[in-house]
């Protein structure tokens, strides 16, 4: 098989896995899902190796050239996202198997495989409409996942998420329609070459950015995130915060850096930057004021997403590297935090902050996972978060927009406030009358593995950074 062929497997394998899992019915779901996961991960790894050695790979699906057919492009950024999804996703699903009942398993696994297929397709695709379809697939699968437990909060969360995500997608689709109308091309590369400032391009850019900001979600439009994350079962929340919300951010990043660059000038970037900064402050403030563990971590997601939007005012290669590195380390760190919260909920049954008391002795691995995850969220050195914060900080000073640096530093302080507010409790003795149900080791090791990824990202950053550099030669 030719190297470009390897680009197909990361998408096809999970799809095939999902379909077979549905087909096999009650008994063999776990086996099929396991095999599919391993296969997909190896496919992603091989593709990463191909891209790392050969550089950017492109494949025209169905053999048709860009204007007519859809084209796949795998550059450093895409492949790094593939790896992140391939590593963080399965770890969360391993945790989900023990966390959810066995009935839910039969529905969780196929849906997760669909999400995996959609995310891989989204990351690789370079076609505007195809991105719409992948976004929709991700959204619908997430809605189904959120409501998998059929309990009232889950259903509410699912419906709210659907009714907020749909307008986002429709706005995006309208943008695609306008672009097609003017340039009669759907491939991002072609669009990037043909784009010229004009009412159609501006409105299309505006509408698409708005749609994706609603789905990511950015600050003023973030209101659906906390209730949805709290209502959904914890492993699904982990998937949502770590990977699914990154999908729409990834599309926005591609659009801004490859398509709309000529028509978007300094002010618009600052506008998104200001909203990002507001998100950081607002998210951190609210995280501080919450009493429920899951809501604190949810609002911290709002804040972390704010950091990612600091990329747009700077829009340099360095800023892109920093933002993407933040995406990757945030995925690992946030997933470990949510999974750890799930463990606590399962073991102690308390959702308030008090649930953490005595954690350090009862469940040392979960505590360590939350600690390492928290440290990465704050951006303290031995963590991936620090590397991202460092690169963004340097970039902000280099481009002379030092105020984004201030936002980063202040955000770090606020983050440390709410992270240590959680961790502090774990040193207190166990509250009286609380019995700790023992949870399977697999459950405890999953968050630790995720947290260790965040740590390794902090200690050995040169490999991902080199990978990110592939394909930016343009």
């Amino acid at each position, binding site marked *: 098989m030719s190297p470009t062929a390897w680009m197909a497997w990361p998408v096809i394998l999970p799809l095939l896995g999902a379909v077979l899992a549905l087909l096999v019915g009650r008994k063999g779901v776990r086996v099929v899902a396991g095999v599919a996961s391993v296969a997909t991960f190896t496919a992603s790894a091989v593709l990463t190796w191909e891209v790392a050695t050969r550089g950017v790979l492109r494949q025209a699906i169905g053999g048709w050239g860009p204007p007519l057919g859809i084209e796949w492009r795998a550059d450093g950024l895409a492949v790094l996202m593939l790896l992140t999804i391939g590593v963080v996703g399965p770890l969360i699903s391993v945790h989900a198997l023990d966390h959810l009942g066995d009935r839910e398993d039969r529905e969780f696994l196929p849906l997760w495989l669909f999400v995996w297929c959609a995310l891989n397709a989204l990351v690789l695709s370079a076609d505007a409409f195809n991105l719409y379809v992948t976004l929709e697939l991700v959204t619908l699968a997430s809605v189904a996942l959120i409501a998998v437990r059929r309990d009232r909060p889950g259903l509410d969360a699912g419906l709210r998420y659907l009714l907020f995500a749909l307008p986002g997608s429709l706005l995006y689709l309208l943008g695609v329609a306008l672009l097609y109308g003017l340039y009669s091309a759907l491939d991002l590369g072609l669009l990037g070459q043909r784009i010229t400032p004009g009412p159609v391009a*501006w409105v299309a*850019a*505006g*509408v698409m950015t708005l749609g994706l900001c*609603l789905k990511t979600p950015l600050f*003023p*439009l973030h209101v659906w995130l906390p209730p949805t994350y709290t209502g959904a079962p914890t492993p699904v929340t982990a998937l949502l915060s770590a990977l699914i919300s990154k999908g729409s951010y990834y599309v926005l990043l591609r659009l801004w850096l490859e398509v709309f660059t000529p028509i*978007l000038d300094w002010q618009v970037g600052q506008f998104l930057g200001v909203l990002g900064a507001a998100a950081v402050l*607002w998210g951190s403030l*609210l995280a501080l004021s919450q009493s429920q563990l899951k809501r604190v971590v949810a609002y911290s997601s709002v804040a972390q997403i704010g950091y990612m939007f600091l990329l747009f005012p700077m829009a340099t290669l360095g800023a892109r590297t920093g933002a993407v590195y933040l995406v990757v380390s945030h995925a690992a760190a946030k997933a470990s935090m949510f999974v750890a919260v799930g463990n606590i909920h399962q073991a102690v049954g308390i959702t308030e902050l008090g649930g953490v008391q005595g954690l350090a002795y009862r469940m040392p691995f979960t505590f360590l996972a939350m600690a390492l995850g928290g440290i990465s969220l704050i951006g303290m050195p031995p963590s991936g978060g620090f590397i991202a914060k460092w690169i963004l900080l340097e970039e902000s000073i280099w481009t002379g927009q030092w105020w984004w640096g201030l936002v980063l530093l202040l955000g770090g302080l606020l983050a440390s406030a709410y992270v240590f507010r959680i961790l502090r409790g774990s040193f207190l003795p166990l509250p009286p009358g609380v019995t700790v149900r023992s949870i399977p080791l697999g459950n405890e090791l999953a968050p630790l593995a995720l947290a260790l990824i965040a740590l390794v990202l902090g200690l050995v950053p040169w490999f991902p950074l080199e990978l990110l550099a592939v394909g930016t030669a343009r």
Partner: protein
Amino acid sequence: MSPFEVAQLPVIAALGVPCVLLLAVVVPGWRGWAMRLAPWAALPTVGLALASGAPVHWKSILLGMRLYAPDEVTRTFLLFTGVLWSLSGLFAGGYLRESPHRASFWGFFLSTLVGNVGAVLAQDIASFYLFFALMTFCAYGLVVHERTSEAARAGRVYLVMALLGEALLLAAFFLIAGTSIDLPLREVPRVVAESRHRDLISVLVLVGFGVKVGVVPLHLWLPLAHPVAPTPASAVLSGSIIKVGVLGWLRFLPLGHASLGGVGGVWATLGLVSAFYGVAVGLTQRQAKSVLAYSSVSQMGFLTLAVGLALGAPEAAPALVVAVLVYATHHSLAKGLLFLGAGVLPATGRGGWRGVVVLVGLAWAALEIAGAPLTSGAWAKLTLKSAESAAHAAESLPTWLSVAAVGSTLIMARFLVCIVPGASKEGKPGWGVLLLSWLLLLVADTVVFLRPPVGAEELPELVVAKNVVSAAWPVLLGVSLSAVALASRRWRAWRVPELPPGDLLWFVERLVHPVWAFMTREVDEEEPGPEEETWGDRLLGRFARLRSTLLHEADDGEANLRQLSHVGLALLLFLGVFLYLVTRPPG
């Protein structure tokens, strides 16, 4: 340089023996025999004084420790220090047989001895400061030995003044040392003479060591410390510890290298004032030991006078230095005799042959201090007068000295009046060792007078009639005056007002105490009191209130943001602002 040549052995022994004994006393196991050997700790110093050692230079100790230089000053000081310490040690052996804190006394006794001997031997600034500090702090242990409240107060005053003195000395040493870290003492006078801060250094050295010597405004601790300290301790304190101050002057002042007229003049007058002030206040004292203390203050006044003159007239400096050495030796041994005598008399009692011997000895020592002809006192005063005349000081100086001599006689008489009637007829058991050590000191005093390590050429002068007369009339006048005073006192018509020891101290204490109380105001509170409202805590309080209101605002903000219509509005605004910014011409 091999660790040590044979010639250096005595120097090492002089310091080493007391150190070893000190360690032995500290370790409970060896405490027994160590305390028995302790009195002989100072013998190696006497041996070193008589024989001669070789300079020692240990580069790796402290900042390059240098010990022993074969000059007059060191030899003289070693002699009288060694003699006084060993005999006081012997005396203490008997004196303290039954007192409870013997171990701690011997510990502090030996460590002060090490400090004293070390200070004399030290040949570089850092080592000198080391031994000087060691002596000062361990002498504190001797002063508060009795553990009474007066002892505590005396100790506190002594320590505070000593610390202030040492701070000034430290500043002086910094100025002297300059860039060369370990400067041998030999070059110090020359360096000081040539340095930019010559006058500042001289003043600092004069005042710094002045605290130890007891020059008038700085003497406040002396009359407090002597009465409370055990007798051998006060003997050593007055005899040799005070003399280290003088040693400091001789080592660090640019005597003979530069002439500081102004400073010298002031210091000389201060010396004279001390002489008279000591006598005046001494006469008002009731306790024998405080009288002796004030007598020391006045005697030291003479030395201060000599040093002041030496500063003023560099050409006369060598003669004055010799005079100072002679006077110091005389005063150390004579004052030792008086102090130990004050301790021996109650033990042996006034009656019997023992009483007579002690009384005669005390009278002889008193005469020596008063400067009676043919005594070491006369010899010391003679060398002083001849040196001062060489320094062509003010003509009226010799007369002043004679008047001061009268004062000395008066204060000696005062001492005898205090000590003799007080003692009981028959003494107390265990007087043997005390009497032996006192007699040995008497013998040593006369031997040193006859075979002086320095200033021997003045001896023949003593016999010259003119000098005998000039030495005799002040003593006679003093004796007659005291006889008259004694007689008049019998009719109780006239009582001498009693000044508390440490005279000016009560005034200084009024000043210092409130400041100290303010600075340590919260120490005594039982629990750490309300967390003191530092500006930091107020800030934190305000910060916490701000934080909670901010969080509530955020919650409300989030609640109304969550309303659907507001989200719709946000969408519309987002698009509107985006389009406005995009369509606006850049810049």
